[in-house]
């Protein structure tokens, strides 16, 4: 914090590196759509400005400070949005092209869907599948689902835990495979750049 107060850019980078993922998750919980990305930058800009001005001196309070700033920005953002809200013109909206996701985003979503499908397929019983889909898709209340199936809270948590663990394994395996593919692609690119492999055959 002292280094940030002294204007050290490297220290500011370290702050973002250390708390960036947590803040992104926090904003993801409080925001919708692409708002989280904008507010992520605003959060760190504001926090760094305050640190430069010396508004916080106890380093142990930094996580709470960051969380507070991010929450406040999110609340303020939606308060302003609510004030600006008007009735949509449905005819005009019909001619507005839908914002298309990038090919990479689509690919990742598709891969993610395949992982989720595999998890659902591998679940032992139809009951487990129903529990999972009601909980994550229909967002039914946990107690209601558990009561419908005559499950205790512990048994219910076990079903979710098993599914999440399996998803975690598949997800990490995909990340590892992706890293391998990335390395191979980079190797091919370097080889091409050095003239070891012709650009086209």
């Amino acid at each position, binding site marked *: 914090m002292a280094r940030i107060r002294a204007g050290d850019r490297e220290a500011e980078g370290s702050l973002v590196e250390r*708390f960036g*993922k*947590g*803040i992104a*998750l*926090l904003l*993801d*919980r409080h925001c919708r759509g692409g708002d989280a990305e904008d507010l992520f930058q605003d959060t760190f800009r504001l926090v760094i400005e305050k640190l430069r001005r010396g508004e916080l001196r106890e380093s142990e309070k930094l*996580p*709470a400070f*960051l*969380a507070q700033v991010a*929450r406040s920005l999110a609340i303020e953002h939606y308060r302003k949005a609510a004030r600006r809200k008007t009735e949509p013109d449905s005819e005009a909206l019909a001619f507005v092209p839908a914002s298309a996701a990038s090919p990479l985003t689509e690919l990742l*979503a*598709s891969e*993610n*869907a*395949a*992982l*989720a*499908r595999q*998890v*659902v397929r591998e679940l032992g019983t139809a009951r487990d599948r129903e529990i*999972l*889909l009601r909980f*994550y*898709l229909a*967002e039914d209340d*946990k107690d209601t689902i558990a009561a419908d199936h005559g499950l205790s809270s512990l048994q219910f*948590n076990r079903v*979710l835990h098993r*599914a*999440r663990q399996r*998803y*975690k394994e598949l*997800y990490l395996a995909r990340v590892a495979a992706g890293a391998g593919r990335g390395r191979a692609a980079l190797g091919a690119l370097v080889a091409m750049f050095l003239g070891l492999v012709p650009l086209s055959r």
Partner: protein
Amino acid sequence: MDHREIVEQGWIELYRRGQLAPEAEVRFEEHFLGCPQCQQDLDLARSFQRGLQAMAAQEVARAAVGAGLAAFFARRSRLLFGVAALVALVGLSAALYLSTARNRQLASLAGELKSELDERELARRKLAQELAEGRERSERERAELAERIATLETAAATGRAATGLARPQVLSSVYLMAVVRGEEDAPAAIVDLAQTAEPITLAVPIDLDPRIHRYRLTLTDPAGRVLVTLGDLLPNPLETLLLAVPGASLGPGDHLLALDGITPDGSALPLERYRVRVVGRRP
């Protein structure tokens, strides 16, 4: 705030669904900002839900395409619908036929695999039985041999007691046939006639093999003439065969001592070949 509490109370999911009390939510956010484990769990939970949502969206899209096609055909004339229905019927029949043919093929393949497995199992049992019999026979022969040795030792002791001899009657030079790995061309033993006692005993170590019923030793001179052949041999309790030859029968040069195994059906399996180099002369 510790992880046990977070896991047991299911805080990750409660937080994501906005079901934590405001105060608890603030505490949890302050915790996970400095906790990589919670961040990973949150990230995975989020990713998992999005994966399920994407999966559901794909299913809905597929269903919508199916419904769209059905509506398209419904709007067309009866003739077109009839043609489409006919095409669908032909396609379905073909699919059914292919499916049946494929099933038949798979069933036949499964049958072949099963019979091959049965045959292998039969062969395995037969081999296991032969092995067990071989072991049993070997044990029996070992016991017989031990009994014979005991009998001979008793007789020898009795003889010694009767004649009053307290030392061996025969002084022999024993040469152990040993081949050093990587030096197979080197002689297994060098017999110096000037320094050996009579008779010269060649000791051949045996690696017991259940396939072998008896052993055979053959000694040939440097010119290839057979000096002695002993068949129907069994190793002693030290798993060694001993061949005693008079020194006078050996001339200078490399002799060959061949060890063969005899199987129960009488065929011979070459096991080892040793070179025995004879040097010097009898004084």
